[in-house]
């Protein structure tokens, strides 16, 4: 049975059950797929959803992109050099557990209520999983591959770029996947706590109007977005690290 078919069946069962039982619930306390679909069509028709999505995605893309640009090199040097690991490792470990929501008011004081603070929240939430995974990946690089570099007198920078980085790619990609989920959550948190805008605004406004079906639309959209981004990362991974799928011992 092809994998996509299994996923489709699983999805059909879940949505079907939700539709069947959801109809009996008071529409303030819950909703069901067909009502959410109707609300979705309405939001698309008025152009609200498109505008909100665009507004949400801008800080998301910037924050997540910056987290990759900073997190991957940071993880590489922390993993590769003992001194850097001793100096910076604790901040990354601590930062991963940092209750970011509590710091949002402070970030607002520094960065205002607009685009910058939203991008910063997304950045801070996705930076640490990316960095930690890269770091872990570097420590898992086989010593024997490093020794190939040393035996052929490769300078440290070349060993880092041409041996450590490619060997770490599967871990980096796993970090990027984990970070997508956190970045989506961060984006909504930022929209709740700063200028209410984007998809977060639709959630808050419809919840305030007891319009539960409409409230579910952005939530579903965000989950679908996360699935799509995960698929995209998987596709990129197969492009940049095709050997990984070949040597991984996974049953198909």
């Amino acid at each position: 049975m092809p994998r996509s078919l299994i996923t489709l069946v699983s999805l059909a069962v879940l949505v079907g059950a939700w539709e069947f039982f959801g109809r009996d619930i008071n529409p303030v306390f819950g909703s069901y797929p067909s009502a959410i679909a109707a609300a979705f069509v309405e939001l698309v028709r008025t152009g609200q959803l498109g505008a909100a999505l665009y507004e949400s995605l801008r800080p998301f893309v910037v924050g997540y992109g910056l987290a990759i640009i900073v997190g991957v090199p940071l993880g590489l040097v922390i993993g590769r050099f003992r001194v850097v690991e001793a100096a910076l490792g604790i901040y990354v470990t601590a930062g991963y557990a940092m209750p970011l929501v509590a710091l949002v008011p402070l970030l607002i004081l520094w960065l205002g209520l607009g685009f910058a603070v939203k991008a910063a929240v997304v950045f801070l939430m996705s930076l640490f999983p990316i960095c930690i995974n890269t770091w872990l990946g570097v420590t898992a690089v086989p010593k024997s591959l490093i020794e190939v570099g040393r035996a052929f007198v490769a300078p440290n920078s070349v060993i880092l770029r041409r041996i450590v980085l490619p060997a770490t790619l599967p871990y980096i990609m796993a970090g990027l996947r984990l970070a997508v989920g956190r970045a989506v959550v961060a984006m909504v948190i930022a929209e709740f706590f700063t200028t209410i805008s984007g998809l977060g605004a639709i959630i808050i406004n419809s919840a305030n109007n007891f319009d539960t079906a409409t409230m579910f639309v952005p939530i579903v959209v965000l989950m679908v977005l996360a699935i799509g981004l995960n698929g995209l990362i998987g596709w990129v991974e197969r492009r940049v690290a095709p050997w990984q799928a070949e040597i991984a011992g996974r049953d198909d």
Partner: protein
Amino acid sequence: MGSVELTDVSKTFTLRVDGAEQAVRALDRLSFGVNDGEIVALIGPSGCGKTTALRIAMGLDSASSGRVAVDGVAVTGCGHDRGMVFQHAELLPWLTAAENVMFGLEMKGVRGAELRDTAQRYLDLVGLTDSGSRRPYQLSGGMQQRVGIARALAIDPKVLLMDEPFGALDAQTRETMQAELIDIHARTKKTILFVTHDLDEAVLLADRVVVMQHGAVQEIMEVPLPRPRGDLEALRGSAVFAATRYRLWRAINATAH
């Protein structure tokens, strides 16, 4: 030219066993030499320090005391005058066979057309003319090790250092590779120092066999087989081979007690 000289090389490791530090003497004033163009095998029971000796000769590990020299020049680290062939080939899995060979060359500063041509020439030498664009996982174990040998030879080192290069291969592939190494040696005249635990391999390939025990030389044995050794099959059946192999077997067994 390409001679190797190990003089009074000692190596002490510190191990942590149950929280207590333990000094392990891997090499104890080890001395032997490899002449230019010669093939020397390092053999001995496991734990005798043969791989450590090879790694120190390569510069991957440093000696606690003593001196390693290539053509009279002291070894202080890895260098392009020595080419290393690893036990499990250790190809970079994200590079093609040709790119793996080119990696070593690039580190030596070779660029452009010369880079591609040299890599191809050495792939030809090891019989992989048409497999240059395959990735390691698309090559058999024997083919991977051929790439490993091509990568080491391509930088034109004075000395080829091999760490149980055929130890991970099946018997048949191993014999093919031994014949090819003999052939490559006949053509390139490279000095070769290799570690093995295979008596047949030591006798067939080497001019001299260094038998090690407890980190020191127990005996250095000449192999009185003539060169070129084109027909390995005939050699295996020869009386000289059998007698030498027996002498070597006795020498190693004497160390085991």
